[in-house]
């Protein structure tokens, strides 16, 4: 127990409310998780104490007979374990049932996982209102959101620890999960099923915002990309739309319309580059463009070999895509 006590305190006090932590409790399911976790934690720690106390007692006590008493003890022990397990199973089942009870509303998001990035579509009944983005998720606080999960290649797993549990994305199948974010904030999600060489760099940022802000974000997302305003941006625009980039990437409102890589229409409004590999800033953007294989070796974006001037132009243009 000497070993267990301080870290357990840390956990129960919720001292680990990080951006990617289970006890962040920023969603309906994760609040239920936190409740159930504490129930299990208290019960299992109690059982651990009993076992260790029994062991210590057995080691230090003065020896006498008493086999009959021990036999009774075994029966009591079995009864205690059995009843506790029934209790825990019941608690687990109740929590599970509540998690599945989330009401389904109109908002549906479809996420398709690729090696090693996330393709995100906000589905609207009017197809012109459907929004495509990549490697980010914006969610309205207080609204249950149904997320349909698919995979384009291997098995991945969708997981926003602060909001809810995992659900796998499996090729040939369609899974779904209902997430109800409750606390406004920025969280991090990371693929939780080993999916190949860059499994470690397959994350995205989750922004939970008030309903109005979310709707504004959606509307802004439907607008075409920012038009180049300076000559450097113009040079970048020309490169992106006429050279290698547009083969794979889409920038809505421009001739760049590739569909096999992350959508770049509002690229600079995201918080990270390369599915959570780098933070979004000019230095990292230039580093990524110069050699995408440096920070994320094995990913499917090749080294283009941009000349310094091209690198400056493309960075400037991409940075303007708010």
């Amino acid at each position, binding site marked *: 127990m000497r070993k267990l006590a301080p870290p357990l305190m840390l956990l129960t006090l919720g001292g680990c409310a*990080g951006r990617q932590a289970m*006890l962040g409790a920023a969603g309906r399911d994760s609040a239920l998780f936190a409740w159930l976790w504490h129930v299990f934690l208290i019960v299992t720690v109690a059982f651990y104490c009993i076992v260790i106390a029994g*062991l210590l007692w057995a*080691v230090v006590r003065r020896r006498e007979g008493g086999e009959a008493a021990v036999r009774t003890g075994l029966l009591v022990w079995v009864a205690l374990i059995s009843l506790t397990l029934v209790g*825990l199973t019941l608690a687990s089942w109740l929590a599970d049932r509540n998690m599945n009870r989330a009401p389904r509303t109109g908002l549906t998001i479809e996420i398709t996982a690729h090696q090693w990035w996330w393709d995100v579509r906000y589905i609207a009944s009017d197809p012109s209102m459907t929004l495509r983005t990549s490697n980010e998720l914006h969610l309205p606080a207080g609204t249950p959101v149904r997320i349909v999960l698919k995979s384009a290649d291997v098995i991945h797993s969708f997981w926003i620890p602060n909001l809810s549990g995992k659900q*796998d994305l499996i090729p040939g199948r369609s899974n779904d999960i209902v997430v109800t974010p409750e606390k406004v904030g920025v969280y*991090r999600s990371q693929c939780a099923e*080993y999916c190949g060489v860059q499994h470690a760099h397959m994350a995205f940022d989750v922004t939970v915002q008030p309903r109005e802000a979310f709707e504004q974000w959606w509307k802004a997302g439907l607008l075409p990309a920012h038009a180049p305003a300076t000559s450097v941006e113009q040079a970048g625009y020309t490169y992106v739309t006429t050279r290698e980039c547009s083969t794979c990437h889409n920038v809505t409102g421009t001739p760049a319309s590739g569909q096999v890589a992350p959508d770049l229409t509002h690229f600079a409004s995201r918080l990270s580059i390369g599915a959570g590999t780098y933070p979004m800033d000019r230095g990292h953007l230039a580093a990524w463009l110069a050699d995408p294989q440096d920070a994320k070796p094995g990913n499917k974006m090749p080294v283009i070999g941009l000349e310094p001037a091209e690198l400056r132009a493309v960075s400037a243009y991409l940075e303007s895509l708010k």
Partner: protein
Amino acid sequence: MTDFDPDLARDGPDLTGKELHDRLIVAWGRPRGLVGWLSTTDHKEIGKRYLVTAFAFMILAGVLALAMRAQLARPESGLITPDRYNQIFTMHGTTMMFLFAVPVMEAVAIYVIPLMVGTRNLAFSRLNAFSYWMYLFGGLMLWIAFALNVGPDAGWFSYTPLSGPQYSPGKRVDIWAQMITFTEVAGLAAAVVMVATILKQRAPGMTLARMPLFVWAMLIVSLMIIFALPAVALDSAMLLSDRLVGTHFFNPYERGDALLWQHLFWFFGHPEVYIIFLPATGFVSEMTATFCRRPVFGYPAVVLSLIATGLLAFGLWVHHMFATGLPRLGYAFYTAASMTVAIPTGIQIFCWIATIWLGRPRYRVPLLWVIGFVVSFVVGGLTGVMLASVPLDLELHDTYFVVAHFHYVLIGGAVFPLLGAVTYWFPKATGRLMSESWGKVSFALVFGGFHLTFFPMHLTGMLGMPRRVYTYPAGMGWDTLNLISSLGSAILALGFVVFLLNAFRSFRSGEPAGADPWDAPGLEWATSSPPAVYNFAHLPSVASRTPLWDEREGLPVMTGLRVDAREHLLTSVIEAVPSIREPSPKPTIWPLLSAIAIGITFVGSVFTPWALAIGLLPAGAALTAWFWPKNADIPPEPEID
């Protein structure tokens, strides 16, 4: 054999002592020299080889673990490339599970089970030799491939479609799947040998109800192997066939199913955990009894717990798949079944503690490992209860919390008892005791290093760190915890080094042990240390669960087995009533040659399916030679008056 009096063809009151020994040495010995060494069918020689090989693989996989800990000691470390890291974690898991944990338990069993049940050798002793060679070749193939940068990189679980032809081109996954085939053949062979020996070769009077608890554990584990391994055999064969000849078992776009792999894999994979854990509980029971100087409390309860665990193990596999989107209602069954395992395990824990309580414990090194086992394993058992709950598992699954959980179960629950068991049976196998003081040093280092390495991982997992990542970003709250884990792993490794050096030094110059250095109750202590090649001069006969404690004047023996040829006494399955004398095969090189022929076939089939057709010829020839009728070799039955 002509040197001996032909009238004395069986052991008995007239034929005992030195003369009996000389005759049995002739009958049970093997030819000298390299060919003789390679031909042996003696369970003690094979058991030792199995054990040394398994520990060698453990050291290799342990070095990989240290490499991973070095890489993860700090965020965004560039020490190991992602491709290499993915090979390393795949090799670590694969080696530890398939080439260390299961084989090492079989290794100990192969050595001690015939001694514990009082017989001269294992049943099907040539099959036992074959099992070892297949295991060795499979392991060598995997590690040679890794050294040539063709190490598998799809995880020890090789989920499809990542491990399929499209996403894992090249030979890496084929090597992995074929290694599975080798270890399956080896594992199944060893299991059949074990079941036959335990059920039919027990000493007269050793009824099922008097069987030592480790023998019970191995009986159940061997039956589990026979039921569990075919699932993964089928699975890996289907994967190979998808990869080599273009079938589509796991290809969702051709009406295959990616999840089918996981069902079959975990139908084997979960029982596998108990296949590792139950022998360890057998070690704990044996050591607890010996060092508490009384039989384990609640023998029937412990046996029933072993059986219950063995059965429940087959009803849990879906708890590895809670996140795959299977029907939610079905999950409730697997939650309940997974939690139920806590009952038999809790019973066993209670019985061991009660044995310490009721007994007069001697705190020698093996008992320290038992206590370390209880303190550590129970943590893993309790986190297992947490993981059985669907809502908890959906968060905890595939994070470092799970890494912490199963290392508590596998190291705390299986490796601690194993190191205790090695210390315990070391004097039997070598004739010398391991150093007590160095044993305590290694225990302290392994125990401390283990907790320092793996306890923080519970927290790393709770803070959201997923498994199987070659690196992680800074500032997630994971940095310090990972550094602590990495430092702990160095201490843990040092503990293993001390343990192995102690074993090596004691083997050379340890204190001589004598037949029964611990005053233990089991039959294995009734013969010399190390035992003669024939194990027992006269077969012992038993009338209780603790024969050596109850028959202080010397065990009653059974005589009448032939001494001019190899012979076993077969007894009835339940009551162990002597029923028949059965010839035991002589040593031969053919199991090795068969294993070579089949091994070449297996390795060749990684490259072309034609290897299977062509390889049938040498394999068939070797097997024919192996199974050639042997009756002609056995001298005719002597007349009895």
